[in-house]
């Protein structure tokens, strides 16, 4: 009977419900504090406008740094928002309730990661062409930019969730988070900028993109497990 219950929860309707429930709930919350949700986007935009201000308004120069700038800014705006994936739930006790729900918590966590990507990574990806334009990125690079950002931001969300779960019980110690996750982010940044730079230079960019895809698959499989483990001991 107990076994039945577990099995039912693992691969049955309940698991799916747990997943989509959490996606929906987080999207609902994001919608309620819309200011919060669009903020990373605006942040992304604004910091991208800072680059020419700081650097030089010279088109040639800008287009050289554009790929890496766009990527670093995407990383920063994820860093800025990833803390919030669990901290609200921790502070108001929802996380406690999640941990004592009769179900595998990996599924809801994956749901939360997906929701995070939907409200930060995806809009950011969709907006990147505009910023590319402002940083005078050559036209040929846009497909690579879009694809690499789409994959890359999902990776950032997944890996960031692990960092966030580790620091969540430190309360607002979220400043520790960058320290934990930036090293984990390095590979994807390297591949991401490589993809766009290759595209700018009219080289074959599917190679680095494929590597990013592989990394994303691994992250989606492993990160919820790691985050769940971290959350379980965070309540001690």
């Amino acid at each position, binding site marked *: 009977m107990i076994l039945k219950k577990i099995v039912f929860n693992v691969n049955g309707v309940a698991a799916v419900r747990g997943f989509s429930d959490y996606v929906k709930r987080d999207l609902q919350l994001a919608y309620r504090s819309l200011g919060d949700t669009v903020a990373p986007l605006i942040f992304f935009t604004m910091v991208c*406008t800072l680059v020419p201000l700081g650097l030089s308004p010279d088109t040639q120069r800008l287009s050289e740094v554009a790929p890496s700038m766009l990527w670093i800014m995407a990383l920063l705006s994820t860093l800025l928002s990833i803390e919030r994936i669990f901290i609200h739930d921790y502070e108001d006790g929802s996380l406690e309730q999640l941990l004592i729900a009769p179900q595998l918590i990996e599924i809801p966590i994956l749901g939360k990661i997906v929701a995070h990507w939907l409200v930060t990574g995806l809009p950011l990806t969709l907006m990147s062409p505009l910023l590319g334009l402002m940083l005078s990125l050559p036209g040929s690079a846009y497909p690579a930019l879009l694809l690499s950002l789409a994959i890359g931001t999902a990776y950032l969300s997944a890996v960031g969730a692990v960092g966030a779960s580790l620091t969540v019980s430190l309360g607002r110690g979220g400043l520790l988070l960058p320290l934990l996750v930036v090293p984990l982010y390095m590979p994807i940044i390297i591949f991401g900028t490589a993809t766009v730079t290759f595209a700018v230079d009219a080289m074959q960019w599917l190679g680095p993109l494929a590597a990013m895809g592989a990394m994303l698959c691994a992250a989606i499989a492993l990160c919820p497990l790691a985050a769940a483990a971290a959350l379980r001991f965070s309540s001690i």
Partner: protein
Amino acid sequence: MAMGSTKWQWFYRLGSPRWFYEISGRWLPWLVCATIILLGVGLFWGLALAPPDARQGHSFRIIYLHVPASLLALAGYYIMAVTGAVGLIWRIKMSFMLMKSAAPIGAALTFMALFTGAVWGKPSWGTYWVWDARITSMLILLFLYLGVLALQRAFTSVEAGYRASAILALVGTVNIPIIYKSVDWWHTLHQPATLKLTSASSIHTDMLEPLVVMVCGFYVFYVLALCLFTRSEIVQQESATAWVKALATSESRT
């Protein structure tokens, strides 16, 4: 209430949403007419009658949208800041309502200036975007507007939203001259001023006259839009008061 004293009577009345609603209701038809006439004449004159530019051909006609939008985007910020300051100092709700309405209009005009500028940039400079000083400061202005808008929306308490955005608008005003100064200086630093093709002074009178009409039209349009936005804000905020309820019933009857 200190404002009840006779000395402040006029000021107090000015601060009454009801009074504004009624008086602006009387202005509305005139404003609508003036806007239609000025914009209609200006557009027809500028787009159809004025001669094409020697160097740019017909693409220069964007000027008739671009310049008025840019001018009003700038002026709108000051209107927003002044109404915000009045609201903060004398605690006049009406003034806050004007400020709140000025924000989306200003943001839209700024966006329009940027958009028309970018569209114009493609034929004249060969690119949609350059980091010219003036353009950059316009972009910053857009961000300032968006900040005010976002802050207003973020508060659940209307009153708090008013005051927060008013303070932000004021702080922004202090910064606007600095922004202009720094950006101008930054630009001359890195890049010789080669970008603007036709300077305003050298513009032909045939082109200038419709432009003046358009600018006037935009000003009237701005006032009209401000009135409309403010009226809807008034109805929203004062929906609990007797006079708005009476208004609603009388409107549903007719």
